[in-house]
């Protein structure tokens, strides 16, 4: 943004007036000041939560209790309380695992890839998206851990010497998955935490002495914002972004290897890694929008998380959704073109005559047809339409994993072995419970941590550039951003931060 202001001005300095220059839309609307940013974001943590927060978190905690009960019942009784059978050995458990892992892809994509490509709009979204990533991976991790059956033996996954002198099979994609997911989780947490340190210091400096100040102070690590700190910090942050970029692409690639390296027709395809990664980004962005559109409205963050952000993200959904659609069609084409009888049969049962045909068409509609409305700007600007499409995508990505996993296994190579798979109530409530778990963690995140990266947002304001000259922005080719009456006020002092400006919570 700062560059846009510069580029449009230097040529005209002192010269005659030229035609109006199309300016890039500012990242933060209404010329907000540094302290406005601090007050607005910290206010979310410091003020009492709106009623809606309590209305959502109470049922979520109840769902977590249901999930805990289902897990206890499973461990106490045995995996037979779930529906998987022979031949459908992977049911909702692995479907849900892949679904949640996919959701967890948007966060690191936004923080890492968009950081490296200098997409400055990411600053308003990255914190919440990274938090969402971590919570989604936590939900995902529960399923394979319990799927192993005897959970008290789950430590066999870790390559530690044991009394049987048996080592893990490092040639197995399932073990690659253990490494990929745990690395992804650890690196995402490191990345998230490093980004949080300056903002935790902001919260610390605004607190009155007490337990809160001690807690924020402890996690802020004594941050003083010195440039002798920032210079290492920025390099470390950039390096983590550079390391996370291949990592985020590798995680879903490895997850897809679980399927692609097997010899099951319908799974054994080379298209899986890019297809899974595109699908994960697609589903992840839909979940970010599902969460952030209500958040920006409830907490009055429209100036920070602008319509431009929604526009960019819906375009990414359109792009990745179309890539996913291409992958679906290419799978069908290759099933025919390869001349492989088994491959052709797998897809014949999947889309035409199989017991789960309806799921296939639900998936196709949700993931390929529904996002096509984003070709129209009017639709991208209508938040209700965006929310509805994102809900379709969230559901569609779950259908996709179910279709890939269950329909393929239910109709394997030997007709004598065919069987149906139905989830039991334990599986259904476990899955619903993980949504409660996910939402509970996200609401607690809103309550205790800054939902938008304060330091990063300040860094993209025009006056953050030491060479910014406010007198130059008064040229005739600059249209000042509109100011909301009654909303443009500076909170008096940090220590006396009042409630959110009027109209923010009810806007």
């Amino acid at each position, binding site marked *: 943004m700062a560059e846009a202001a510069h580029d449009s001005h230097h040529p005209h300095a002192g010269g005659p007036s030229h035609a109006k220059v199309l300016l890039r839309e500012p990242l933060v609307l209404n010329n907000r000041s540094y302290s406005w940013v601090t007050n607005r974001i910290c206010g979310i943590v410091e003020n009492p939560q709106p009623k809606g927060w309590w209305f959502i978190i109470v049922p979520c905690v109840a769902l977590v209790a249901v999930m805990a009960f289902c897990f206890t019942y499973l461990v106490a009784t045995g995996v037979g309380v779930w529906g998987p059978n022979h031949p459908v050995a992977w049911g909702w458990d692995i479907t849900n695992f892949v679904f949640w892992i996919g959701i967890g892809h948007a966060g690191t994509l936004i923080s890492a890839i968009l950081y490296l490509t200098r997409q400055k709009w990411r600053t308003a979204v990255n914190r919440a998206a990274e938090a969402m990533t971590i919570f989604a991976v936590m939900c995902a991790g529960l399923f394979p851990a319990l799927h192993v059956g005897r959970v008290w033996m789950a430590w066999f996954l870790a390559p530690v010497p044991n009394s049987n002198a048996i080592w893990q099979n490092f040639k197995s994609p399932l073990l690659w998955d253990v490494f990929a997911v745990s690395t992804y989780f650890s690196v995402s947490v490191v990345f998230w935490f*490093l980004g949080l340190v300056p903002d935790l210091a902001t919260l610390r400096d605004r607190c009155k002495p007490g337990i809160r100040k001690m807690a924020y102070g402890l996690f802020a690590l004594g941050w003083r914002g010195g440039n002798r700190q920032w210079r290492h910090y920025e390099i470390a942050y950039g390096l983590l972004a550079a390391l996370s970029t291949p990592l985020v692409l590798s995680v879903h690639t490895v997850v897809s290897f679980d399927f692609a390296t097997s010899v099951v027709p319908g799974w054994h395809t080379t298209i899986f890694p890019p297809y899974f990664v595109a699908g994960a980004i697609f589903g992840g962005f839909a979940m970010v929008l599902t969460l952030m559109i209500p958040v920006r409205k409830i907490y009055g963050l429209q100036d920070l998380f602008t319509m431009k952000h929604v526009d960019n993200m819906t375009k990414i959904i359109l792009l990745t959704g179309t890539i996913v659609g291409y992958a679906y069609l290419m799978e069908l084409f290759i099933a025919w073109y390869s001349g492989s009888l088994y491959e052709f049969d797998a897809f014949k049962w999947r889309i035409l005559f199989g017991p789960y045909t309806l799921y296939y068409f639900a998936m196709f509609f949700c993931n390929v047809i529904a996002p096509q409305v984003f070709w129209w700007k009017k639709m991208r600007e209508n938040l209700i339409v965006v929310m509805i499409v994102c809900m379709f995508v969230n559901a569609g990505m779950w259908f996709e994993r179910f279709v890939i996993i269950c329909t393929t296994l239910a109709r394997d190579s030997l007709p004598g072995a065919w069987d149906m798979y139905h989830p039991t109530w334990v599986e259904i409530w476990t899955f619903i419970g993980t949504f409660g778990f996910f939402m509970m963690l996200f609401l607690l995140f809103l309550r205790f941590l800054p939902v938008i990266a304060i330091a990063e947002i300040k860094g993209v304001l025009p006056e953050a550039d030491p060479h910014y000259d406010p007198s130059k922005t008064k040229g005739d080719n600059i249209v000042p951003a509109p100011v909301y009456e009654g909303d443009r006020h500076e909170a008096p002092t940090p220590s006396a931060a009042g409630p959110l400006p009027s109209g923010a919570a009810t806007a």
Partner: protein
Amino acid sequence: MSTPLKRVHGYLAEFSSTKDVYHAAEQVRDAGYSSWDVHSPFPVHGMDDAMGLPRSILPRFVLIGGIIGLTTAFLLEYLTQVVIYPTVVQAKPANIYTIAAFFPVMFELTILFAAFTALFTCLIMMKLPRLHHPLFNSRNFSKFSDDKFFLCIEARDPKFSPEKTKAFLAGLGGANIELVEDEL
């Protein structure tokens, strides 16, 4: 009742824009000070040059961390799969030619080790974490994390002088100049 002993940490001056603090930093650099720092709510673009600081050497350590991760993963896989406990699973032989199947774990551990090296090396270089710092005695300083910029020249700087440094900071346009002390 005894008066607590105090040690002077340095002079702290407040600035209200990146532009002011940037130009002040250039002059402090040119005046030849060495123990000083600029505190800002966000990293100020170009401040390393204004302060005359070289580029961070952090990437070298991260590279070493990554190489250690890669080696660890390779040894973990090769020693357990080929040397200690050779197992033929799914007709895949137990020898070095199966190295392609080792790549995913080698990649993941490279990233894991490099990321943690980046975190911990960065903390060491930033001299963090610490529970207390003399600057936190200044009430004014808490605004560094909101919208103010601070320049602090420390007393351990050889060019530090109680009168001249204060006048120098005032001449740079610094406001609310205060002497920061710490109890011994």
